[in-house]
């Protein structure tokens, strides 16, 4: 089953370019994630990080470029193979994306029910084990609507790791949470990586969280990768846009008078 030798990256993105209508969202993105590391993809809103994530999850098809997950090319992979590949990948979405008509427990065991042939008792034990890991023991029978924001994210994390995936994606773990809960979630991600040996990709715009959990950081801006490296390398990066992002300075926009007038008069591009 393990098709990837340990030296080979878990994720390889080559020259990925995508469009939304005529607008280019990602421009020649290259990215590689090594086994066992926590890679944080960082960028402001509109940087293309959510689009990049959707492509990494195989939800969108790239215009050009290739994406290899666990050694398999998403573009050429067949339906059944993709189905098998999905067993190795866990995803925790930004808003949790728990199925609202199901209890927390049913949500967490949904991947098990679909992928594994296990009896109810075993699935129940596995579900409760994962809920313990994310500190949600005893909340199995509640509906998602009865949980707080932080609990929903933790339940989503439990669902993401129920199959013991090799690769875990986490979209905006700290968005919408108070600092204490956000910090707890960061700790949880670190603990999970150590306990399960899983490779983690976190997409976030939160600097503090990124610096705390990342082994490496990729900074994305306007669809392009500005820098990718360890936390220290990114901090030391001389690129002005990276420094603006790190120091929370607004981007200085150079005003083109002609274009500005064009925009105002409605004849602009």
């Amino acid at each position: 089953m393990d098709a990837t030798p340990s030296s080979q990256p878990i994720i390889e993105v080559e020259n990925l370019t995508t469009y939304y209508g005529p607008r280019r969202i990602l421009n020649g993105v290259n990215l590689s994630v090594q086994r066992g590391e926590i890679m944080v993809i960082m960028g402001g809103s509109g940087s293309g990080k959510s689009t990049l994530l959707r492509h990494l999850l195989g939800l969108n098809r790239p215009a050009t470029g290739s994406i290899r997950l666990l050694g398999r090319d998403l573009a050429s992979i067949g339906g059944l193979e993709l189905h098998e590949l999905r067993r190795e990948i866990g995803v925790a979405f930004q808003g949790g994306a728990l199925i609202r008509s199901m209890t927390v427990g049913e949500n967490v065991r949904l991947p098990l029910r679909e992928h594994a042939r296990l009896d109810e008792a075993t699935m129940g034990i596995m579900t409760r084990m994962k809920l313990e890991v994310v500190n949600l023991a005893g909340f199995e029978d509640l509906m998602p609507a009865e949980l707080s924001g932080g609990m929903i994210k933790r339940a989503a994390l439990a669902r993401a790791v129920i199959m013991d995936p090799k690769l875990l994606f986490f979209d905006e773990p700290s968005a919408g949470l108070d600092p204490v809960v956000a910090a707890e979630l960061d700790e949880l991600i670190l603990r999970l990586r150590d306990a399960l040996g899983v490779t983690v990709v976190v997409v976030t715009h939160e600097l503090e969280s990124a610096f705390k959990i990342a082994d490496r950081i990729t900074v994305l801006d306007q669809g392009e990768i500005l820098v990718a490296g360890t936390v220290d390398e990114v901090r030391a990066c001389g690129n002005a846009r990276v420094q603006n992002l790190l120091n929370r300075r607004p981007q200085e926009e150079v005003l083109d008078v002609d274009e500005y007038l064009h925009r105002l008069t409605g004849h602009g591009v």
Partner: protein
Amino acid sequence: MVRAIVERIGSQTLRGVGELGYAVALLGESLYWTALGKRRKQAVRLAAVFHEAAVIGVQATPIVAVLAFAVGVMLAIQGIATLRPFGAESKVVLGVAMAVTREFAPLIVGILVAGRSGSAITARIGTMHESQELDALRVIGISPVRYLAAPVLLGMLIAVPTLTVLGDLMGILGGAVLSSLQLDMSMHAYLERTLAALTPDDIRQGLIKSLVFAVIIAQVGVSNGFQVGSGAEGVGRSTTRSVVLSISAIVLADMVFTFFLNR
């Protein structure tokens, strides 16, 4: 001016054809999962199908019974009034029996289910789309079509014809009750004459239509749900659209099928 109108007609037609194509493609995919899901390790769950059938069918039973009964009564009143000048009031039995089984029971059930369940299906899938639940299903390895659309289609195909049979019975009962009160005819005699007048073809016509309506409601509801626009407003708009479209499609399909089934 003229050009703008022509352009609008053109773009709307294009959109309409595109949507029709999408709904048909979804139908194909639902049937694909139903037939081959097991081989692809994604069987359509029987429990989900029966759950849908129960929600669509069982819960609509009282209202279908009441409406079909009312339609039967109205048909009998109008029938008796129309036939009285000819002194042929007793022929109302035939009129009610044929009108209910061929036309009114499937139509009433179709419109009712479209309003009740079609909108609910669109709203449900639309909000799931909004909250990324559909994406969550996809990354778990669950095709949303197989998980959400196929059970709806199969549930409809069970529930709508079943409700139509109920509508047939209640409509005829309505005619019988009214006639027994207004005409010198016992309920028993009315029902016996109905049985003698009806042919299997009458029932078959109604059931064929009800199957068509079931497919229309399911596909319009599901495809509008998957294509929902952004925000809560998007879900609301799609829901309204789904109901209007499926009721219109049902009435038009009814006309076409009535024409061809009676040739």
